[in-house]
Each structure stands twice: as structure tokens, then as C-alpha cells.
């Protein structure tokens, strides 16, 4: 007699997602977060392969150019961090990476400012998009702070002059008591850890908001009542959602 036993066909394990039938919520907090995320940003909304027809201007390019420049800033900064803050003063390769970091920052800020003005003149906060504007504005201010701390940690004459001048403004409103621009160690930590983390997080939020709400439609012309109705702006309550 053969020892082989014919096993019954395996019963497929219920998928945690498929297990949630209509009206049945499973998975605890994790399941709730997953369902909320998929509801807010289904894959075809998160990464669509179409765009509204009115997205047909060069001004739209500056958003993605800003994001691309941000990645180049992070990449060149990562190489400088890898070798330490003094490396670039005595190495030609290091100096070139410092130059890459400087110019990518200049491009990043230039692209972002153009993107920002473009969005202002589109009144891009209309239609429950206030939070998209706010995250964009805060990421601009955060980037200004990050760039500022970068100038402070260059360890050259510029750093000396900028820190000794900037201290007066910060001290005048009490910020300097806790944020000491003449403390190289503190500024280096802010520049390479805290501020990039905050700006990076806000940029991710900003992009998710753009994907969630979609690109703002054109401002309705007074002579074109056939266009879909639009509202001036979101309420604070809506923006918070």
C-alpha cells in the first residue's frame, strides 16, 4: 500500500481585503487606515495616466522641475554628508559636489518661486485646495530656512559674516536664545537632519494633496456660464479634511 496520501485541495486563505464584505469592517486600525488611504487616493488617482485637457501650459512644468531639483539637492547634500562637512574645502571632487549642491539649490528655489507665482495667478486654492496651497507655502518657508542654515555651515568667510549678521535679527525676537546661528554643531544638525525631514514630509503631503484634489480647473470667464460651477475657495473646515 502506498504511503502517499492524496491531500485534499488546499482551501484558499481568505484575503484580509477580500474578507471585508459590504458593510463588514475588518483589520482593526490597520484596516481602517488602509481603507481610508485607498478611498482618498485610489491608484488611478495617485498615479493617473491622463490629465484634464486644460493642463496645457509650460507653467505646469515648474512643479515637477521643483520636485526634480529637490531630489538633486538631497542627493548632492547626501554626498557631502557622507564625506563630512570639511571634505569639500580640501578636495576638488568635494568642491564640485559643493557646487552641485549650491546650484541645485538655486535652481530649486527659482523653480519653486515660478511655480508659486503660477499657482497664485491660477488662484489654485479654489475648490477645497486651500491645504494644497498651505503645504506649498510652508514648504517654501521651510526651504528658505534650510537654505539659510546651509549658508551658516559652509565653514568659510560667508558663514562667519552671515551668522554674525543674522544673530541680531533672531536675537531681537527671542529666537536666538534657542536657535544659535553661531553654534556650528546646532546649525549642522538643523541643516542636514531636522529641516530636510520637515520639508521632505511637507512636500510629500503637498504632492498627495495635489493628486487627491486634482489640478485646479480654469477660472470661469464671466462670459462663459457653460463651464462647471466653481467656488472661490475652500472653507477652513474643508481645508482641514
Amino acid at each position, binding site marked *: 500500500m502506498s504511503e502517499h496520501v492524496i491531500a485534499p485541495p488546499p482551501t484558499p486563505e481568505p484575503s484580509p481585503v477580500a474578507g471585508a464584505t459590504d458593510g463588514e469592517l475588518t483589520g482593526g486600525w490597520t484596516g481602517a487606515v488602509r481603507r481610508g488611504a485607498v478611498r482618498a487616493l*485610489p491608484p488611478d*488617482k495617485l*498615479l*493617473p*495616466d*491622463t*490629465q*484634464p*485637457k*486644460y493642463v*496645457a*501650459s509650460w507653467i505646469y512644468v515648474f512643479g*515637477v*522641475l521643483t520636485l*526634480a531639483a529637490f*531630489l538633486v539637492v538631497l542627493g548632492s547634500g547626501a554626498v557631502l554628508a557622507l564625506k563630512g562637512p570639511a571634505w569639500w574645502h580640501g578636495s576638488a571632487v568635494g568642491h*564640485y559636489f559643493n*557646487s*552641485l*549642491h*549650491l*546650484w*541645485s539649490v*538655486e535652481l530649486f528655489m527659482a523653480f519653486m518661486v515660478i511655480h508659486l507665482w503660477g499657482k*497664485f*495667478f*491660477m*488662484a489654485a*486654492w479654489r*475648490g*477645497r485646495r*486651500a491645504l494644497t*496651497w498651505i503645504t506649498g507655502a510652508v514648504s517654501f518657508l521651510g526651504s*528658505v530656512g534650510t537654505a539659510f542654515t546651509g*549658508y551658516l555651515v559652509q565653514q*568659510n*568667510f*560667508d558663514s*562667519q*559674516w552671515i551668522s*554674525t*549678521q543674522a544673530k541680531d535679527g533672531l*536675537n*531681537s*525676537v*527671542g*529666537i*536666538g*536664545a*534657542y536657535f544659535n546661528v*553661531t*553654534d*556650528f554643531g546646532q546649525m549642522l544638525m538643523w541643516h542636514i537632519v531636522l529641516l530636510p525631514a520637515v520639508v521632505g514630509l511637507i512636500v510629500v503631503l503637498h504632492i498627495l494633496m495635489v493628486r487627491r484634489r486634482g489640478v485646479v*480647473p*480654469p477660472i470661469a*470667464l464671466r462670459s*462663459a456660464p457653460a463651464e462647471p460651477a466653481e467656488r*472661490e*475657495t475652500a472653507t477652513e473646515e*474643508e481645508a482641514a479634511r
Partner: protein
Amino acid sequence: MTSHSPHAPHAEPDPYSFGSRPYDLVKEFTIALVAVLALTFALAAVFSSPDEKPMTIASWAKADPGDFTATALAELDGSSGTASYGPPYNTAADGQKLGPLALAKAAGVTHPIDAAQAFVLGPLAAAPQDPAVTSALSTYNAASADQQAKWTGAYSDALTKANDDPAKVTASDAFGPVPVLLGQLLQQAQTGSLDGALLSEGGFYQTDYTLPLLFLADGSDLAAQADAQHLSGDQWGMMNETGNFPGQAWLWLYTFWYQISPFNSSDNADALVWGTMAVLSLVFVFVPFIPGLRSIPRLVPVYRLIWRQHYRELQQ
């Protein structure tokens, strides 16, 4: 025309209700990344980046012993920028005010600096000295504040008459031990030991450059070199780096306020500018909720240019 996502519960136009067209976001991002990388590599190769060597206490003391000595004297008699600064370094002043708000004073003295001790007496006491310097140090420390002020005042007058050149000051008993102390401090500075002494935080590793930077900033040479590099405030220096490289051009509005009245003549200029920029930053962030401001885009026809193709199609 394709219609995608369902309408949100609130009445607002679905972007896709205007019609849609194929668009490859990933391809667009990849092209943008390659283009930005190429542009950055080219700009870095062509223009490089500035790296002007920092000024040291030693280079300053060697290049301009007169300015160094005058600055050290100001630290000793309490008339230097740092000695008379106020919070967060000391209580010599209340700090600036923003209207009725004394924010600097409220934040308090978080980086206490006794200028005479930190910049002059401390570094002298910490280094091995010959008997004449040790004796001068003891004499100065044992004297009353009034006596110290008489010595430093007399030496300050003499130094001013000698155009800040200590070598041209005629010796006098009225100066007490001050010339010996400052002469020795100048020697320590010129040999480079003062750079290390000011950086010492009581441990082996050091990261805080507050003392040497404040000492340099109290002198004239740092500002003179910055001025020569077009970095001064009245030169809109915040927007430049050394060697005519672009600086923080995005801070043009911040530095603009310093050029005009009442900011450029106020004792509270820094606090006023910071207060103004804080308000403007809040306005910028909350534009969507500010009536009038949020309507500007409708009044300025830039949007007609951006969406000209859409409006043209609409008219057709």
C-alpha cells in the same frame, strides 16, 4: 472626452469633467530629473562655488594689531558690541522691542557671556604666563571697578590718540596693568592660541563658535572685508556670496525693509523687520482665506494666458 473619478459630495467641478488627454507623469518626471541634473552639472562645472577662507583671530591680530587691541580693550571695559548687547548674552541691555513686546528680554540670557572674562582675562589666566603678566592680572583682578574703569579709560584715550596703534602709545602709570594684559593677549592671538582658547567649551570636542565669532564681529576687520565683498546690509549683501556668487536672493523682501524708513533708522529695526516678515509670512500661507487678496488672480489676466487654449476651445 473621458470622465474619471466620481464627484465629491460638495459642489465643485471635477477636473476631468473638462475633458482629459493621455499624460505620462512618470515620463515627465524622468525627463525633468535628467534635465535638472544636466543643468546642475553644467552650472557647477562652469561657475563652481565660492569658498573664501574664514578669518581667524590669529590672521586678524597679525594683519591689524591696532584693531585687535582696541577691540580687546572694549571687551575689557564693557563698551564692545557683545559686552553691551543684552539678551541672550548678558543683562547689559534689555534687547530690542517689537512695540510693547520685549521678546528678547522675555527669552532671557541663555548664552551668558562676561565679555571681559571670556575674551581677555580668562584666556590670559588659562595660559602659562611670565611673572610680569601674572602680576598684572592679579593687580587688575584685585582692583575696584572704579579703578579698572580709570585704567581702561586712560588707555582708551591714549590708544585713540595713537590711531589705535599700541606701539605708539607712550607708557604711563595711568594705564595701570592694562597695556601688559592687552600686549600679552595680542601675542597669544598672533600665535593662534587665542583661537583655541575661545573655542574651548570645557570638553574635548568643540562645535560652538559663538565666542570667536562674536569677538571677530566686535572688531572692524570682519565688516571691512565683508564690505569689500559687497556683503554689507546696505549693499543688499544677503543676496550675494563672496566673489559675486548668487546668495539668498529669495530673501530680497527681508533685506528690502532694512533699506527704508522707519526700519533703517530705528533702534528696534531687527525686531520690526522680523515682526513685519512674520505677518507677511502668515498672510502668504493663508492667502486662500483673505478676502480681496484671494481675488487678485481674477483681476490680473495672467490666468487667461495660462489657460488660453482652454478659453479658445470654449469660445469655439
